[in-house]
């Protein structure tokens, strides 16, 4: 059975990755999950300097999902290379580094520092974080996005993924802008901007207020899966680079739906929080599905989706 897929120049042994910001640097679930079984670990967003992130409260549960406004708390690229990457490299885990910056200069600088470092499989450009100044503006402005991707493309030969924002009217416009800039693949999608309200207690004079200190946050989890599936399907039809599906994937069935509409791989995020073995279970579930349906190569499942009726 062949489960390996090629993601814009990066070959990974199966199509299941962790989603950035949900798995630390591959170091948090080692007691509960065998990280070496995953296609790749995508790291927490890494910036040039260490970052503290947003003040609490930073998260809350919502219907079939959660909101977060972490704000890219991370150790910085130097500490990442010195401390976080070696354990993954030693265990042979493919590592996609999620790169974040508040300017093109910072994106380029972080990408250059990661270039030539053994154990870095690819870079994922986080142009769509809704909780960080600068991050989202690249992801929602096709021109700025194109300029950013073009600059990073010139700065590194590493395979480049660009993680797109769903918080736009037409995601295919941003997808094309990133592809024109030279990205090798696209990850679709980041979280959906949302908010939650605490009604307070009028009898004690406590007025309604936001649950999150940041007021808005990124919505993730099963609640956003239909939106993600739709956006992956749209992007797959619009561009010719591999697409990685992200958004509410919690089971092998969910992952297979994304592969069917054309994703070459998937990333699993929020599900790991309540089931630390979610990624492994999805790997096993896809393998079981392939056995049951006598599929020899995972690539034969990708993009097999068809609409069996004509438009009315």
């Amino acid at each position, binding site marked *: 059975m062949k489960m390996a897929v090629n993601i814009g120049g990066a070959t990974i042994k199966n199509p299941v990755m962790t989603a950035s*910001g*949900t*798995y*630390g640097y591959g170091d*948090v*679930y080692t*007691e*509960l999950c065998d990280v070496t079984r995953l296609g790749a670990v995508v790291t*927490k967003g890494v910036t040039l300097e260490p970052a*503290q*992130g*947003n*003040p*609490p*409260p*930073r*998260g*809350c*549960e919502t219907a*079939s*999902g*959660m909101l*977060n406004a*972490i704000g890219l*708390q991370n150790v910085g690229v130097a500490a990442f290379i010195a401390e976080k990457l070696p354990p993954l490299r030693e265990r042979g885990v493919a590592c996609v580094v999620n790169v974040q910056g508040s300017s093109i200069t910072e994106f380029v600088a972080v990408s250059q520092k990661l270039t030539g470092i053994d154990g870095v499989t690819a870079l994922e450009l986080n142009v769509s974080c809704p909780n960080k100044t600068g991050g989202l503006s690249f992801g929602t402005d096709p021109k700025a996005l194109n300029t950013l991707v073009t600059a990073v493309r010139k700065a590194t030969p590493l395979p480049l993924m660009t993680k797109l924002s769903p918080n736009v009217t037409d995601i295919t416009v941003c997808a094309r802008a990133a592809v024109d800039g030279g990205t090798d693949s696209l990850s679709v999608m980041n979280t959906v901007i949302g908010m939650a309200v605490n009604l307070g207690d009028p009898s004690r004079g406590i007025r309604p207020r936001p649950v999150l200190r940041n007021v808005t946050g990124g919505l993730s*989890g*099963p609640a956003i899966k239909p939106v993600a599936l739709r956006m992956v399907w749209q992007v797959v039809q619009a561009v010719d680079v591999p697409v990685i599906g992200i958004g509410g994937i919690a089971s092998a069935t969910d992952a297979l739906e994304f592969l069917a509409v054309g994703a070459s791989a998937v990333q699993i995020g*929020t599900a*790991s*929080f*309540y089931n*630390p*073995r979610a990624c492994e279970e999805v790997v096993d579930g896809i393998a079981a599905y392939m056995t049951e349906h006598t599929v020899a190569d995972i690539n034969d499942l990708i993009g097999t989706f068809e609409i069996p009726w004509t438009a009315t």
Partner: protein
Amino acid sequence: MIQKQVPIVFNHHLAGATHVLGFDCAEIARAAAPGQFVMMREVQPRGYLLNRPFSIGNVDGNTIEIYYDAVGKATHAFAELDKGDELDVFGPLGRGFTLETWAKVNVLVAGGIGIAPFPFLAIELAKRRPQTHTVVLAGFRSAPLVVLADLFAEIGVGFKVATDDGSQGYNGFVTGLLEQELDAHGNNKVGVYACGPELMLKRVAEIAVGRDVFCELSLEQRMACGVGACLVCACNTRAADGAADYKMVCKDGPVFNARDVVFE
């Protein structure tokens, strides 16, 4: 740390919204320390998604006891579970209380369901430091909400109640009772452990730090993962150089030295 589906062995209502639930898990029972917590959810959650964090209230053989208030979707669902039902649990998690201190008197300060980690702490203090004296100061809104008096009597530690409405014990907040207790002992012989609402913890920290008393606080914050992956449960602490430093309640805590916590 292990993840497992475990059987519930009892689940009782105590008073007000407070319940006690016991589940069997030898691995967690062996590894648990006072102040640590577990993440729990139903095997098939009804109307919620994420695990919820709960202090390990006590360990009796292979049984882990959890004290909880049924106040939200998940905890209301837990309250409906019976003996034999299963929970999805992982733990033990986090950094617990420091048991080895110079204190001769251990003062455990609880606000409401903040009493949850203290049976385990009181028992372990009695075991490991038999020459010390332990007293639990417990604040509740009103007398009908008072829980665990019998248990602490059985453990053999002091138990003093404060009620907001004066219907039992000290009339006022438990922090008033703490000041009385500290006045009665030499400060340098007392160690304070506190768990409860943030405003209570803030006042406990002011009192203890102001008197230069060893004090640890068990903090509460919304969590998604419990292991340091999601970074949701940040709390504001002070680094060694005095700079602001976000720590994770799940991984760096939930227990912190009162001197290190920055309250707004």
